[in-house]
């Protein structure tokens, strides 16, 4: 009956965590905002070219965890990481002090809750990440911009107005533009922090559709408050509570028959 909440890959064999190739692995990760500990010894694998959803009540640490993946916390003093996020294949600890946050961000892209396009043209928004990485050849940039916009399911809507300001797009289009911007440099992991919470249901469906389409090509980690969304778009789900990772499993299992009572209480809307 696990089919009741079927993941998107309906035709493929049942997913198994044990044999799945890992793109990254979080090991004993602690995170502190000054003295306050926000993550407590978190462990979980990030499976390669699959969508992993982080769910949990407000303040559980899911956004904090997501932000560790591209070292966003480094922007503020007093924040401290302990433990590891190993990025494969080279097995690099990306929260180590020795690793340059800029280097991490070049490999791991991020999309935020509210669309944040640059005050530039649609084309320049998507090309920005390429230029930062030193890609100058116009033909190549053109090709990557088109590819990213197509992957983000925005190409048909903007192909005739690439030079117009990104601010002229609707909220949903702006968010897809931000996803295209993140996708253009071909990142290894893309992080999404509640990417649809500011959007209407139609724009939300479009983003979910694009996640379904890219989910087998790019490794995605998504934070969402919408549990149905997590059930729809992700292959794996992690439930967090008070800075702890309570349960991590195949999405179908989490939403049909979770092992932990705290997970069950949360996903069914019960008092925990």
């Amino acid at each position, binding site marked *: *009956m*696990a089919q*009741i*909440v079927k993941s998107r890959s309906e035709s493929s064999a049942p997913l198994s965590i044990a044999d799945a190739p890992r793109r990254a692995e979080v090991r004993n990760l602690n995170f502190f905002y000054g003295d306050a500990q926000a993550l407590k010894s978190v462990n979980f694998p990030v499976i390669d070219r699959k969508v992993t959803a982080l769910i949990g009540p407000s303040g559980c640490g899911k956004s904090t965890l997501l932000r560790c993946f591209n070292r966003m916390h480094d922007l503020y003093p007093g924040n401290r990481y302990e433990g590891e996020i190993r990025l494969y294949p080279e097995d690099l600890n990306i929260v180590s002090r020795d690793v340059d946050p800029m280097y991490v961000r070049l490999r791991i892209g991020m999309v935020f809750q509210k669309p944040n396009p640059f005050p530039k043209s649609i084309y320049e928004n998507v090309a920005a990440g390429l230029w930062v990485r030193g890609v100058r050849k116009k033909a190549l940039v053109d090709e990557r911009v088109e590819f990213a916009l197509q992957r983000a399911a925005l190409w048909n809507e903007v192909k005739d107005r690439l030079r117009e300001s990104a601010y002229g797009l609707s909220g949903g289009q702006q968010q897809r533009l931000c996803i295209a911007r993140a996708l253009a440099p071909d990142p290894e992991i893309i992080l999404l922090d509640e990417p649809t919470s500011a959007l209407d249901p139609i724009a939300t469906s479009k983003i979910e559709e694009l996640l379904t389409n890219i989910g087998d090509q790019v490794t995605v980690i998504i934070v969402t408050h919408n*549990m*149905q969304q997590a*059930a729809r778009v992700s292959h794996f789900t992690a439930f967090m509570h008070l800075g702890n990772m309570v349960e991590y499993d195949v999405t179908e299992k989490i*939403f*049909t*028959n*979770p092992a932990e009572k705290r997970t*069950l*209480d949360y*996903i*069914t*809307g*019960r*008092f*925990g």
Partner: protein
Amino acid sequence: MTEHILKAFDDDLREISSRVAEMGGIAERLVVESVDALVKRDIALAKRVVPADAQVDALQREIEEKAILTIARRQPMAVDLREIVSALRIANDLERVGDLAKNTAKRVVALDGDYHAQKQLRGVRHMADMVIERLKQVLDAYGARDAERAMDVWRRDGEVDSMYTSLFRELLTYMMEDPRHITLCIHLLFAAKNIERIGDHATNIAETIYYLVIGEVLTDERPKVDTTSFAKIGMPG
């Protein structure tokens, strides 16, 4: 189970589950009455069973509507989702149970009390007692959300099948013995088949309860012993 933050959701689920229990009670009563009518040649009772099945059908529709509305409104997950899916499934099984009881009652009316065959009825009565006991147990297991009790019914499914197979053979011998028994025996055979199917529905319900409580689908092959599909009739002489 702890309560939902949204009280109305608890009310919805309780309502659905109590409707299923109510439907179970009525379906069980119809089975008991249809068998009583058959064994006691009580045509008046049989005539009451036939229209009473409509109550079961109405409850099934009501459960279905409430379940669909609850899914649309609450987007249930995990145990809540299983609760609703189980209610739908059990309501389907009970609706069939009601139909089968009705069919037995119709046969009693058709026979018009024109039989005095305690010998032929004995086996049917015995089998019916067995099935009614299982139906009762499985409905109790639903009320108590008791997977172990449900599995007890599931494991004993084969007994009803064996009973039906031997009853089938027994009724054949009566028909061969005296062609005047054929009408009665054919009706009894169909009544017995109805009862055997009610047993199958009780087993279905047991599987559903297992899924509801444990959260996994029972994949084991259920114990099947009905071999009448392969039975051959050897005419004397």
